[in-house]
């Protein structure tokens, strides 16, 4: 108890730093972000340079990650597409998690009408058939968003809203279930007896204890958002077909999997590393936030 004077934020950071995997993951994720942002300057190869004489080549000095079936450089494509994949993955994860946690938390705290109403909304979203809905959204909103945010910006906003907006339901259900159980626990009752407001009970006492499944859900969300982005571009909802996002690279590579495994290997590994590092960061954060855990 000698560290009482240390602020909670700094204490969390101290505990987080001691989580070796989490620290390593932070470095890996940072490197990947730097790679996709700065990389195109260090490796100035055009992403759409077609070279039929260099089809499906394995990794070499001139093409460190090999080439695809039009002889385009995979490294350059991955760095370009990685910006979008990482941004979409992270942004959609944030949207889905925030929406899910908010809805789940309010439903889980409510003892009156909010719970059935919010659960009805969740059920509704779970049962909507996604493909017709997506086609409807493209049809209704694409032109307007394009006008407001420009081609790429509009598509980005649309994708993040669509992926985030259609995938928050599991988080909401998980959070609600945790809340239902936690709100009856002794420590919450103690807080309630001390006169803590509902909001304070939620944010200070229940939510930190309900974070476990949320962190797992949001890391899974990153990978599914990266994949979902590529699915969307097949519906004409995503980025134009010539933008090589990681999910799209993986999809394009699948028919050549037996002859050109490198084509699928690199984007697959990139998605894997992203998921892995975000997950360990999440684990580290949870351990750091949980005072019971001795680190």
């Amino acid at each position, binding site marked *: 108890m000698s560290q009482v004077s240390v602020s909670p934020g700094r204490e969390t950071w101290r505990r987080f730093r001691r989580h070796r995997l989490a620290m390593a993951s932070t470095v890996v994720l940072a490197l990947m972000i730097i790679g996709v942002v700065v990389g195109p300057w260090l490796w100035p190869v055009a992403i759409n340079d077609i070279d039929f004489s260099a089809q499906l080549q394995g990794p070499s000095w001139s093409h460190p990650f090999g080439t695809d079936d039009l002889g385009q450089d995979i490294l350059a494509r991955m760095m370009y597409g990685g910006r979008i994949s990482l941004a979409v993955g992270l942004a959609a994860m944030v949207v889905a998690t925030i929406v899910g946690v908010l809805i789940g938390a309010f439903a889980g705290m409510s003892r009156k009408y909010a719970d*059935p109403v919010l*659960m*009805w909304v*969740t*059920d*509704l979203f*779970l*049962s*909507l*058939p996604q*493909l*017709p*809905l997506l*086609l*409807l959204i493209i*049809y209704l909103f694409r032109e307007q968003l394009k006008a407001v945010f420009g081609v790429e910006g509009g598509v980005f906003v649309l994708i993040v809203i669509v992926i985030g907006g259609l995938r928050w*339901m*599991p988080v909401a*259900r*998980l959070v609600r*279930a*945790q809340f*239902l*159980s936690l709100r*009856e*626990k002794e420590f919450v009752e103690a807080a309630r007896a001390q006169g803590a407001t509902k909001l304070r009970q939620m944010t200070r006492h229940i939510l930190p*204890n309900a974070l*476990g*499944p949320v*962190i*797992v*859900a949001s*890391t*899974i969300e990153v*990978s*599914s958002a990266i*994949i979902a982005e590529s699915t969307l571009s097949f519906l004409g909802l995503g980025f134009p077909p010539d933008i090589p996002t990681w*999910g799209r690279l*993986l*999809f394009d590579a*699948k028919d050549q*999997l*037996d002859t050109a495994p490198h084509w*699928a290997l690199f984007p*697959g590994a990139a*998605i*894997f590393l992203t*998921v*892995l590092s975000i*997950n360990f960061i999440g684990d580290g954060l949870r351990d750091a936030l949980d005072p*019971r*855990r001795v680190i």
Partner: protein
Amino acid sequence: MATYLIRRLLIAIPSLLGISVILFTVLAMAPGDPFSEMATNPNVPPEVREALRASFGLNDPIMVRYLRWLSAMAQGDWGFSFASRINVDDLILQRLPTTLFVVGSSQILALCVALPVGIYAATRPYSVFDQIANTLAFVGFSLPTFFTGLLFILIFSVSLDWFPFVYRSDIAATGWRWYWEMFRQAIMPITVLGLFQAASYTRYVRSAVLDVIRLDYVTTARAKGLSERKVTLRHITRNALIPVVTLVALQMPAVFGGALVTEQIFRVPGIGSLLIDAILANDTPVIMAVTFVFSCLVVFFNLIADILYGWLDPRISFS
């Protein structure tokens, strides 16, 4: 409890009606035309197309069409498929057994893998076993099923020639051979789906068990001298099951709804592929029927989950 159940079931009726209104509106407004092939075919005069649209009632306002659908549904008439020109319930019944078998087995497989692995990994966090299990789980959900499915086909069908990769709903064999053939053709889709699901379940189980494993009551149970096995099963697992129950309840409707991508890859004639074909052909009666049954299941399993929460943690009350 009984009154609670009755109340919830009664609430379910208006909420399902509300969902059906929204589903119907979305489908009616979504772009596409069930008779588009007719329109682009120069051999079909426009009058024929109009006559067909009129006979299927497609020119009426949405509300009229919805009420017609609702009253037919209430009388057990599920509608008539535009694309196949047969009754929708026949179509669904043809597909249902396959979907229940393939997706159901994959869910069971997922749970059978995820529960033991997740619990064991959580009791020894950051051990070698835990690290390996985690890494495999990450690989599992980083790779989409279209990719793992193809990988399986290339390895087990093309290279090794062990299993067929085209799923057939009627196998021309009887007796033991039938079971053997069924096993051979079902193993790849079930494994692909099951392992994908197991990867995320494992992470949830591990995280949920970790959340309770250091709580005081667990320490108390150990201090009482209970065996480690008993502590894990009786005290830890039961309390850690709430997120797992939530997830399983979320996934159960999919056992009816099918798994779109996997069904497509292995040509499993399930509800998922029926739905996607119907969507691509704008066959609204089929889409509406499948999604409506799906939403009924979503609502129903949400209710089941709530009841199970109360059983797992008696302090949870809904009254």
